[in-house]
């Protein structure tokens, strides 16, 4: 299973004199942004959403340690997320109300530890193989664990799951962690620590060997490394971070449920990571934010959001296999050479017909849905604030024309944009 993605890991700072700011600047900026976000998006929903995004960022990044960095496609990553969450919940319930001196913000360590332990156990089994066989073993393990979760009713709490109360912990600095905003900062801190740690791992020799195992396992063996050991270590570490994410999710929602380690959750993390971009460290972060947001909000807009979601995913796999982050990374050389303003107009030129084509397609989908599924509501519907009747042929003709013309123009404009892009890059090469 060879993966032809080139990793964009910034080179280690070779310049010893590189200042403190250049090296840690990005993390300081990230911390300031995280601290300021709740002041910009202050509604209860926004804070809850950002809390969920934080846990998902850790989860998706930990998954990318497997898929993106080491080339291992796993279908059971939610197992570690879930087990981490359950053990965190049990640990918290065990000390709740007692005079235990462990404050709340240390409990995600329990999740991480659990993730690591199970990562070692299941990793020892599954990383003997790579490629499709590895994917199938993870699928089997995921099925076994989620089935056992239903049978072990006392530990996993049956259908209703395990509930906990995060305010029952010993309070430090007067933080009760009752208000969601305090939990947000807890998650933000842990998110920052985890992201930094995972980034640091990619920069170590171990991180590089993982990339090598992904790209050319035979050569790695020739130079004296055991690829199985490398896969095993990557798997265990990724379990560790997934467990931290799970622990934070348990604290955030104050409930853990066996659905949280099911096949659906494992599928969601694949979507996040891939849509964000597996070839770039920032990809899964973008993916976690975008996908979580769409999962929560798109359902307000349309009932068939999963169809759009599937189409988006297939489109990404076909035309943008490096994900959203890959698309952004393409612009980097343009920025460096200050050529972006030459290309940007072409992007807009391509974007407009693209939007027209998408609106035509979604009009067809929504009209079909109105006629096929929402028959009780009748053929009258509203799209883009424009009311019309889905029974008459006119809207169908308009939709098809929108789609066809939009697609045609988009393809032409995309070609122009591509030309402009390569021309702008060629500029750079001139002296």
């Amino acid at each position, binding site marked *: 299973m060879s993966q032809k993605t080139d990793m964009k890991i910034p080179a280690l700072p070779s310049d010893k004199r590189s200042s403190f700011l250049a090296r840690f600047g990005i993390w300081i900026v990230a911390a300031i942004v995280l601290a300021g976000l709740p002041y910009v998006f202050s509604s209860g929903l926004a804070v809850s959403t950002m809390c969920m995004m934080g846990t998902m960022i850790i989860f998706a990044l930990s998954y990318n340690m497997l898929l993106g960095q080491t080339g291992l496609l796993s279908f059971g990553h939610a197992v570690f997320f879930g087990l981490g969450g359950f053990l965190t919940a049990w640990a918290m319930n065990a000390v709740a109300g007692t005079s235990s001196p462990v404050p709340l913000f240390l409990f995600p360590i329990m999740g991480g530890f659990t993730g690591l332990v199970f990562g070692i156990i299941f990793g020892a089994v599954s990383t003997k193989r790579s*490629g*499709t066989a590895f994917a*199938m073993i993870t699928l089997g393990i995921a099925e076994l664990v989620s089935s056992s979760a239903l049978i072990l009713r006392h530990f996993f709490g049956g259908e209703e799951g395990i509930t906990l109360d995060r305010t029952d912990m010993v309070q430090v600095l007067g933080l009760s962690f009752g208000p969601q905003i305090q939990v947000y900062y807890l998650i933000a801190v842990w998110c920052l620590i985890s992201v930094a740690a995972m980034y640091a791992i990619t920069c170590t020799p171990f991180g590089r060997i993982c990339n090598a195992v992904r790209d050319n396992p035979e050569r790695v063996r020739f130079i004296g490394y055991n690829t199985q050991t490398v896969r095993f270590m990557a798997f265990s570490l990724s379990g560790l971070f997934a467990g931290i994410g799970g622990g934070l999710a348990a604290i955030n929602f104050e409930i853990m449920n066996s659905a949280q380690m099911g096949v659906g959750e494992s599928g969601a993390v694949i979507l996040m990571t891939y849509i964000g971009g597996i070839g770039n460290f920032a990809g899964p972060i973008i993916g976690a934010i975008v996908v979580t947001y769409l999962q929560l909000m798109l359902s307000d807009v349309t009932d068939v959001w999963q*169809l759009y979601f599937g189409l988006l995913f297939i489109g990404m796999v076909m035309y943008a296999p490096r994900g959203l982050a890959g698309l952004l990374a393409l612009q980097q050389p343009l920025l460096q050479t200050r050529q972006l303003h030459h290309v940007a107009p072409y992007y807009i030129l391509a974007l407009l017909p693209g939007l027209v084509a998408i609106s035509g397609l979604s009009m067809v989908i929504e009209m079909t849905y109105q006629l096929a599924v929402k028959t009780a509501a009748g053929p009258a519907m509203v799209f883009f604030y424009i009311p019309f009747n889905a029974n008459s042929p006119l809207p169908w003709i308009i939709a098809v024309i929108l789609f066809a013309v939009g697609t045609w123009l988009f393809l032409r404009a995309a070609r122009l944009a591509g030309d402009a892009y390569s021309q702008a890059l060629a500029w750079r090469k001139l002296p």
Partner: protein
Amino acid sequence: MFEILFISTINGVLYGMLLFLMASGLTVIFSMMGVLNLAHASFYMLGAFFGFEITLHMGFWAGLVFAPLIVAGIGMVVERYGLRHVHRHGHVAELLFTFGLTFVIQEVVEMVWGKLPVDYRVPASLDFSAFTVFATTYPAFKIFALLVSVVIFLALLMVIRRTRIGLIVQAALSHPDMVGMLGHNVDRVFMLVFGVGVALAAVAGVIAGPVLVTQSNMAGLLGPILFVVVVVGGLGSLGGAFVASLLIGLVQTYAVAFNISLADVFGSSPLSGDVAFYLDDLWNVTVAQVAPILPYLLLVLILIFRPRGLMGTNNR
């Protein structure tokens, strides 16, 4: 005891052959194209719904012929305009492409046929009981499914082992350039193979639809059991898939017949205290209770101890 063993054997064989019917297309596609089609169950579902729709208007037998043809057409379009495009991004991209396809097919089916089960009936010509053993009747339709399954197995074996087409297809997998230079259109070969593979899934859908439940979530609920069959048998081995289907069918059916738990064998739990409280559930679980989970255990064990599967030829 003899009675339950005898009945279990019949049930196990019938179920195993139904599994093979569903999984045969998956193993065909994998053995010839090297692609594990995660959307296989979705094509199976499409087959069931097309079969249902055609049965309404033209009868079951027309459905059995036309539904697989339609699905084969859809499959070939997917291969031509999707999968082939993704192929150059590697195997992970191919797996993910078929993964995305499952969402789209499910939503489209929901839009066309709704989310509730449809009333897909066994055809009147096969709606009688074939034989009765120990007061248990076996419907003719199940015997029909078994026959179709065996016929498909033999036909596939013949085509792959004994015909020129099979030879070209297998050569195209390992040496596509060479086959291309010999004047064969490799792309078209792959397109046809994918079409045949999903058509087999559709045949399974048309036949299993009336026996099971024809509903828009049937693909998801079938779950990964088909991958278990294909992997346990040895990826890409048709004979292996056949043996594995029977094995899984029999294991699962026999397991249901036995109500033995660890507690029955070793007495009550040796542990005490809190740990025992939580592990008690596991200690008292009977073999029958976990029967449908056993295939997954088999999957993990096989991949650890015999990675190429029961009858696989390589370690791909």
